[in-house]
């Protein structure tokens, strides 16, 4: 077995060895994307289906490029073109797709747990590309890859995650993966956007951005969803920015070598200021590059595992 799991549903079920192997493999894949001919024949003849029930450009594209760079055939099915609008049950949809023998299903869904549900009915490996407020494991892995390539070792690093923790699958996936790798995590945001008893996950909770960034190696800024305003979780985006926008001012007490990451897409001036975004400390574009390598690594490792059981 290359990985301890057949599916990538959450970072919670990945061991330290799994994460290490994924990051190492992704490191090896980085070089392919810098070639003139950005393609290797490894997954020739394999079919990857991107099943997206929620709009997404960058994640879907990243998975698609990753598959294509490995010579797999990648088919995109989005929520609006799939039968879900016709009232077809999620499981029926997936079973129909599986009858066409894909080798991997990449699933994004607005409901937490939808990929886990699918995995009970489907034999093909499933990669969770984001489910509700639950997890987005490939995002966390690419964040770790980005951090590791700048810091060398992950163990002992301190990270602060800023923003809407309650609804963030990126935060959940990162917290688990980072803890597995021996990192320390702090979250910061307004109390309505941090679940009660969040400390039970083993993280520190803060509501003061300036202080929270003081001793950390990495600041991860989350995208703030505009609709939180209408749900009464935020008074206004303007007020949110006053307290939680990452600016050079709010970074005043941070270390000089602090790294800034953001899963994108960015609301400039709401959760992060333009100058911070474009400063050399910001690795936002490196994350996008890492994303392709991570997804290539996941495909490679999952199909490798699948192949371990011929017949």
């Amino acid at each position: 077995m290359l990985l301890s799991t057949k599916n990538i549903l959450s970072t919670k079920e990945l061991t330290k060895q799994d994460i290490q192997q994924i990051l190492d493999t992704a490191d090896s894949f980085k070089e392919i994307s810098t070639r003139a001919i950005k393609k290797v024949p490894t997954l020739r003849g394999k079919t990857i289906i991107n099943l997206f029930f929620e709009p997404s450009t960058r994640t879907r594209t990243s998975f698609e490029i990753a598959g294509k760079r490995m010579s797999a055939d990648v088919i995109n099915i989005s929520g609006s073109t799939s039968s879900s609008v016709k009232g077809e049950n999620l499981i029926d949809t997936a079973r129909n797709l599986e009858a066409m023998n894909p080798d991997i299903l990449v699933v994004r869904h607005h409901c937490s747990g939808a990929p886990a549900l699918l995995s009970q009915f489907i034999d093909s490996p499933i990669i969770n590309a984001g489910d509700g407020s639950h997890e987005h494991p490939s995002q966390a892995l690419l964040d770790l890859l980005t951090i590791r390539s700048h810091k060398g070792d992950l163990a002992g690093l301190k990270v602060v995650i800023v923003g809407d923790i309650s609804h963030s699958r990126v935060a959940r996936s990162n917290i688990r993966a980072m803890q597995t790798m021996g990192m320390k995590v702090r979250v910061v945001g307004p109390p309505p956007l941090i679940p009660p008893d969040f400390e039970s996950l083993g993280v520190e909770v803060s509501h003061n951005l300036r202080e929270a960034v003081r001793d950390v190696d990495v600041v991860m800024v989350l995208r703030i969803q505009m609709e939180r305003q209408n749900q009464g979780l935020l008074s206004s985006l303007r007020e949110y920015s006053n307290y939680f926008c990452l600016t050079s001012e709010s970074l005043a007490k941070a270390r000089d070598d602090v790294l800034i990451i953001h899963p994108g897409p960015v609301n400039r001036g709401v959760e992060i200021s333009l100058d911070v975004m474009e400063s050399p400390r910001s690795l936002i574009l490196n994350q996008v590059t890492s994303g392709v390598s991570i997804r290539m690594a996941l495909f490679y490792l999952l199909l490798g595992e699948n192949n371990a059981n011929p017949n």
Partner: protein
Amino acid sequence: MQTLIKNGWVIDPANMIDGSFDILISDGKIEAVVPHGKISASKIKGAEVINAKGCVVAPGFCDMHVHFREPGHEYKETIETGSASAAAGGFSSVAVMPNTSPVNDNRSVTELILSQAKKTGLVNIYPIGAITKGLKGETLSDMGELKESGCIGYSDDGKPVMDSELMRRALEYSRMFDLPCIQHSEILDLTRGGCMNEGVVSTELGLKGMPVEAEDIMVFRDICLLRKTGGRLHVAHISSGGAVDLVRQAKAKGLPVTCEVAPHHFTLTEEACRNYDTNAKMSPPLRTNEDIDMIKEGIRDGTIDIIATDHAPHDLADKQVEFDNACFGIVGLETALPLTLKLVDEKVITLQKAVDLLTHQPCRIFNLDKGTLGIGKDADVVIFNPNTKFTIEPEKFKSRSKNSPYKGWQVRGKVLHTLVAGRSVYSDQNE
């Protein structure tokens, strides 16, 4: 037509009987309950004999909170399949909630339910009428008409009566008919979009939580109203330890409040929702071990009056979906006895008290002349072996639906016979 149930251990809390008795049933009525072997042979000549050796013989159980889905959602359950499920669980009487389609908020729906029940002829079915028309929470239903046509209580179950003014009027008006208002206690503002208890597990799973305060606040509000209005408040499926405390305090002040608990609320916690098991999706949601401890204390000290299953059958299509989109509830009738007997195993209550919670107490609250083995009463009887071990297999349920989180549980306490008015409506295949 006579039936003799002999060699059994009779538990009849209504008549304070607890011992080795034989029961003679004649023409559907209890004719005699006498110490074992004391009935003269001549008297029972030709009687059908049920040997209940090693078994408990009790009044048929009474579940005051079930959903039989008819009319409207017959693909989930019908009065016929629901009755069979009840009989298999040892229940001879059930009260059916009005959230059918159309809603049971008027005479014609009540009469339809009763006529279907009569046609089925398995267990006694008591309709509960809606508190508000169409369960819309806007105007009171015709409570008088509902009572006259056969309803034994009022509830908007599935939904709470959110409007405090309306709830006040419901409690006031129902006084005239001396029937309880059964509240599904949930402040909807706090639970919007929620699908499980708010807590550590909902945080980890990324599911929207339903905080326990939503239940506590509603119970508190209703108790406040009750203090003003009089009337009778029955708190349905209590799941919060805090709400149990509130009911205890209200009872101590002599307020006419009663409450029920469903077996899943003292046997499962929010942990059951891990892996997004939709069979653990309930309303009110499965809570925490602390709540279970407080509920058990409430059962022990009598704060909680009865056990009711909130039998909520759902088709696979309503459960085998994303957790967010799944329906709330489980099949309750066929697992109620063994789950209740766990309380006996854990020494929370005695076996006698367990039978009391399933028979005499519900009938007392709902003014039913049932749940008793008194001489001359309808011979509704359950015979169960409290020691028989078995594995719960939902696929074998008599209910049309199979949604149960108890699949594979090893439990004790098997129903062997259920009699309604002297007639066998269920007997275990292995007997």
